[in-house]
């Protein structure tokens, strides 16, 4: 039956027609709330794009190549193994801290280098993206 319930991974991800690659968005929830960002592409999980304000300003990023391996799995938070208590020790041993991998840094730079010149072309856009959105 076509309307049988599908698991989340098979749900159809819809996207607002106004959000296309290069659109500027304002992120509303989470650590980056109020930040203005450039939309690159929609991932298969459709995460987050409901909680976003779309600005009608767009940048032309048609020539920007986004690494193919930017998928949900790539961006998923890594669960760090909790240190096991050794005998006799009551307090936690040093926790493993989250380290930014070299691969991430490399990819970030690769994408930034492509996008920054596109942003600089539009006057005042860089300052705008730097600023934070608020309802005051």
């Amino acid at each position: 039956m076509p309307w049988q319930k599908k698991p989340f991974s098979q749900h159809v991800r819809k996207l607002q027609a106004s959000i296309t690659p290069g659109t500027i968005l304002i992120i509303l929830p989470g650590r980056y709330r109020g930040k203005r960002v450039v939309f690159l592409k929609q991932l298969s999980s459709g995460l987050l794009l409901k909680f976003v304000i779309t600005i009608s300003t767009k940048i032309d990023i048609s020539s920007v190549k986004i690494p193919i391996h930017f998928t949900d799995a790539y961006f998923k938070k890594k669960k760090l193994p909790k240190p096991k208590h050794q005998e006799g020790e009551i307090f936690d041993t040093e926790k493993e801290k989250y380290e930014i991998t070299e691969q991430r840094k490399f990819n970030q730079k690769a994408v930034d280098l492509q996008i920054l010149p596109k942003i600089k072309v539009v006057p005042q856009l860089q300052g705008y993206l730097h600023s934070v959105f608020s309802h005051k």
Partner: protein
Amino acid sequence: MVFGCFVEVGRVPSISLGPHPGKLVGIVYAIAQNRAWADGPCSLVRRQVMPFKSMELTDFILNFPHGTGQRYVRQDWQKAEINTKWAATRWALQTETRDRKAEMTDFDHYKVRKAKKMRNRIIKLDVRKLQKAALLECAAAAAAAEFPAKTMAAADKKATAPKAAGQHAAPPKTQEGQNTPAQKAPAPKASGKKA
């Protein structure tokens, strides 16, 4: 209160309601107590019946007899250059800026904020300069009052010098205000709206 604008044949009202808000038409004939036959050949409004209630009278009157054909309404309109005169009125400018403001994006708001900030800084600096100059003047005048005859000449020189400098640095109040959203609106947007 004496009324100066009347509903009459040839009056050019602006339409406020219906499918053609903001456009100008010419009243061709008053059909009934509350309706008129109106035509806007130069403002892309077809000849049609329109209620007076949807009209806001402007100061423009065209001179044609009642029931004239569209061709003559157009001729009169173009001769009177209604479109250019209308665009120059405050009314039209205000509606235009109001529409532009309504269509401002978040990016435009940001640009306006920055422009206002810059303008206010310029004004503040110049106000401070004038204040300084005024203070110097006062000080010089006070000095002159205390030591009349001798230092009068010297004080005069001092007073005139900073005063001249203060006047010179009068605030170049950039006439942004209403036009700021217009100026700062991105080019494609502006052209899209004008069309």
